Each structure stands twice: as structure tokens, then as C-alpha cells.
């Protein structure tokens, strides 16, 4: 028996003027064809990312009202359907990171997973199996956001990167991120993450 565990379906970076900066899409396991392919089209992912913006604003307002700080990990933003869920993080400069998780995105060998759950010896893998059944724990996305933020900081440190071109003070337009290093880093994060991972 093969079972599936959550994986990252899409990573999005959104500028402070709600301008899209970067989108990476990752293929999910498709049991019908036993192959890997994205669960949505790029346009649909773009719409999912856009739909998180209102929630970001709402959370920011709620947090400000409650006085619990402005930014940081916002946790689950919304569950799109029974497969996809969007998680968000906002930096103090207003840049948003969105992770769209596919709850059944990756196939694991059922026998191995069951064995690991039984022995319980391998802490990580038993959590992984539990994650498949119960969804993701609070703070599960933290290492992902941390890694994304690290990559973003690295990008900002590059002297040839012009923040103003990407998030103009006027608030209109803005280029997307074209850095290969950054795209490569996003790909590494998206492919490397598994439930229970503590660092990326």
C-alpha cells in the first residue's frame, strides 16, 4: 500500500505593494497516473496567492488591534480545499511569503512508513506518518519561512539587486525577481521540505 504525505506545491513571494515577486510551482504525486505533476495551473496558483492578500491584511489589522506585534508567522491563512492549504509569513518590511501545501503531494512507501510508526524509534518518520493522518502541526512551516527569509535577505544584500525596481515607492508596477540564485534556493526549499523537518 502506498500512502501520501504533505509536500509543498507552491512558494510565493509578494512585495509590500501586493506585487508578485516570485512564484515557484512544484509537482505533486498523482495517483491516477502514478507520476508527478502540478495539481493546478500557474494561473490557478497565482489566484490562490492573490486570494491570500486579503487575509494578510485582515490578520495584520487584527494583530495591530490586539497589540500582539505586527508581523511574523501568520500560520494557516486558508484551506483552499481538502488538498491545498496556504500558510503565510509577513516580514516587518511588508514582504509576504506564502507556502501552498498539498496534503497529499508526495508518495511514501506504505510498508516502510507503517514499520517506522510501529517501532516509533525514528522520531521524525513517526511524526511524518502522524502528519499524514492529522494535517500539519502548528509551526510546521516555520523552517520553510525561515529559509525563504534567509534567501530573500541574501537577495537583498546583492548590490546589483534594486529593491526599488521590484517594489517602487509609487506602488505601481514593479519587476519580478529574476535572480537565478534565489530561484534555485526556492526550488531547494520546496523540494527539500518534508513534514517534521526542523531546518532547511
Amino acid at each position, binding site marked *: 500500500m502506498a500512502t501520501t504525505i504533505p509536500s509543498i506545491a507552491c512558494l510565493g513571494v509578494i512585495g509590500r505593494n501586493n506585487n508578485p515577486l516570485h512564484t515557484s510551482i512544484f509537482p505533486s504525486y498523482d495517483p491516477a497516473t502514478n507520476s508527478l505533476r502540478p495539481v493546478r495551473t500557474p494561473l490557478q496558483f497565482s489566484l490562490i496567492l492573490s486570494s491570500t492578500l486579503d487575509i494578510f491584511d485582515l490578520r495584520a489589522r487584527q494583530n495591530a488591534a490586539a497589540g500582539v506585534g505586527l508581523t511574523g508567522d501568520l500560520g494557516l491563512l486558508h484551506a483552499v480545499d481538502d488538498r491545498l492549504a496556504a500558510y503565510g509569513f509577513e516580514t516587518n518590511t511588508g514582504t509576504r511569503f506564502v507556502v501552498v501545501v498539498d496534503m497529499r503531494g508526495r508518495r511514501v512507501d506504505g510498508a516502510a512508513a507503517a514499520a517506522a510508526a510501529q517501532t516509533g524509534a525514528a522520531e521524525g518518520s513517526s511524526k511524518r506518518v502522524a502528519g499524514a493522518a492529522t494535517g500539519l502541526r502548528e509551526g510546521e512551516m516555520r523552517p520553510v519561512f525561515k529559509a525563504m527569509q534567509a534567501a530573500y535577505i*541574501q537577495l537583498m*544584500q*546583492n*548590490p*546589483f*539587486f534594486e529593491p526599488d525596481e521590484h517594489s517602487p515607492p509609487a506602488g505601481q508596477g514593479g519587476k519580478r525577481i*529574476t*535572480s*537565478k*540564485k534565489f530561484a534555485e534556493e526556492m526550488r531547494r526549499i520546496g523540494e527539500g521540505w518534508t513534514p517534521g523537518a526542523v531546518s532547511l
Partner: protein
Amino acid sequence: MASSKASRLGEEVWKTRMDKVNAELVVLTYGTIVAQLCKDFDSDYIEVNKQLDKMGYNIGLRLIDDYLAKSNTMRRCSNFRETAEMIARVGFKIFLNITPTVTNWTSDGKQFSLIFDENPFADFVELPDDGRAQDELWYSNILCGVLRGALEMVQMQVEAHFVSDVLRGNDTTEMRVTLIRYIDDELPPEDD
């Protein structure tokens, strides 16, 4: 001076006599200079290389005295090989806290390479993706100028240029330094 002795000297000077400054300040300042030069010269990278070299030259002219004072070297290097060791193990060590490898000597002992395993200037940097920067810009070219300027002040005319850079996708960052000649001290014209 033996190379291990030079290493010790570099280490000691670095630890005890050098004022330290935040690395990111240096990296970002240098990065801004290069990026601004690229903008000012309309991405004429050949010209940017020249300007960086010129800036470095002016730095080198001044830096050499600081080097001599801090390192307490009172005597001349006996040959160019020793000079190379002192540059790598003392000079680069005390100012940048790196020790490039001296290698690839020509048989006449007048040309060597400095291989930079780490280059603090190039942290975070990704060259512009315009198809030319990767082939034309030597990001750390200021270092060539520094060497040229500093060595000129101690009667050595050298030529220095980069031959490879990890930023361009090469495996190593390598600078080639060539001794052109020892400049003879010119006597002031006699007034008779």
C-alpha cells in the same frame, strides 16, 4: 622570512593591532560602489574595471604605510617570492582576514597567482544577468589596484589582473601578479 613565520606575524598583527569593522558594512559599501560605477558608466564594464583599479591604486599608495607600520617590517624582502608570501600571509591577512594561496610561479620567479578561497567582497553578490557582466566585469578588481599601488611605493612595478572569478562561474578566484621591474631610487638632480 619563512612562510610559517609570515603566517604567525599576520595572525598576531590581525589579533592585536588591527581595528576591526563590521564585515557587512564593508561588503555593502564596496557593493554599492561597484553597482554605482556600473550605472554611471552605463554598464561599460571595461571602464568599470579601470575605475576600480584606479581606486585601488590610490588606496594602495596609502595603505602600504599602514601595512609597514603595523607589521613592523623594517627590511626589504630578499626576493619576489618572499614579497608574494608577505602579501598573502600578512597583507591580506591583516586587512581582510583572508590568506590567499600563492601558486603557479613561472620559472623566472617573476609571475605568480593568488588563489582566493574566500573573498569577503563577493559575499551575497550575483553579477547582473545582462549577458555581458559575466564576461567583462571583474567584481573585485579594486584588489589589483591596491597591490599595484602598494608595491609601487616600495619600488616594485607590478601588473595585476584577475584571470578567473567564482562570480563568473569559474571554479576559483585567481589573480595573476607580474613583476615588471624594480624601480631604482632616482637621485634628486644635483645642483651644481
